[in-house]
């Protein structure tokens, strides 16, 4: 199936709902994430448990991936609330809604509210992320 076109930044306005992105949490992603952190906590050695910040990382990237962002975008602010746990092989739905778009000089500030839910299950994470988008890098 053809991947839907990315949403141009100029279309984003407060209240704009980004398309839901669904994906399966793969064990290999968790392994790479834990290795990147040097994380050896026993919490993640049992039941295929996933660090909640790993889910936040995967989800934020999935949401941002629906937007046609120029290279060089960085985070400036974040709010994240953990509400439940996910495991390897869970399928999660990532929803985002534009809270605000501000322009200052040649930078745009985009704030997105997001919510992550296990498919057929409960909400496991919610939060907000603010991105600085350069007009031209």
């Amino acid at each position: 199936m053809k991947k839907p076109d990315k949403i141009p930044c100029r279309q984003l306005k407060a209240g704009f709902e980004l398309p839901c992105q669904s994906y399966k949490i793969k064990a290999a992603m968790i392994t790479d994430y834990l290795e990147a952190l040097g994380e050896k906590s026993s919490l993640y050695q049992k039941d295929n448990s996933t660090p909640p910040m790993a889910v936040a990382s995967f989800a934020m990237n999935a949401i941002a991936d629906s937007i046609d962002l120029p290279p060089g975008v960085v985070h400036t602010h974040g709010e994240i609330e953990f509400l439940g746990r996910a495991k390897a092989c869970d399928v999660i739905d990532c929803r985002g809604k534009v809270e605000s778009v501000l322009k200052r000089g040649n930078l745009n500030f985009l704030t997105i509210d997001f919510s992550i839910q296990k498919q057929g299950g409960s909400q496991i994470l919610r939060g907000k992320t603010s991105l600085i988008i350069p007009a031209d890098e």
Partner: protein
Amino acid sequence: MINDIKTGTQLPGCEKKVDRRSIDLYAKASGDYNPIHTDEEFAGKSRFGGIIAHGMLVLSYLSQMLTNNFGEKWTENGRLDIRFKTPARPGDVLTIGGIIRDVKDTGEKMLVVCDVFCRNQHGEPVIIGEATMKFWKGG
């Protein structure tokens, strides 16, 4: 795990050295291949003048420190509200820590509020913010 949950308690922190391998592994895990994190040439010409670590990688270090201190209490109902102040770069040595600012008894649960930080080897703040978690009494 921390035992002494009271206002003013310093959370045992940790140090992390940022390197290209961690950044590349994080890019692979998250799918975030923004060239500011992965492409020397692009990043060199950007306003950062070189590769910077993903903000979410550094935030993950902070969450790791909180997991080490609070275990599942953190991973099951933690909340972070943070600002990214200075980018972390390969070669940086980050100090990550926090202090319990407030402990509120709301009846059925305790709310623990911590000031958290991540600083680089120059003492510059990379992340500053607040972490909150709930402890259900008897739980």
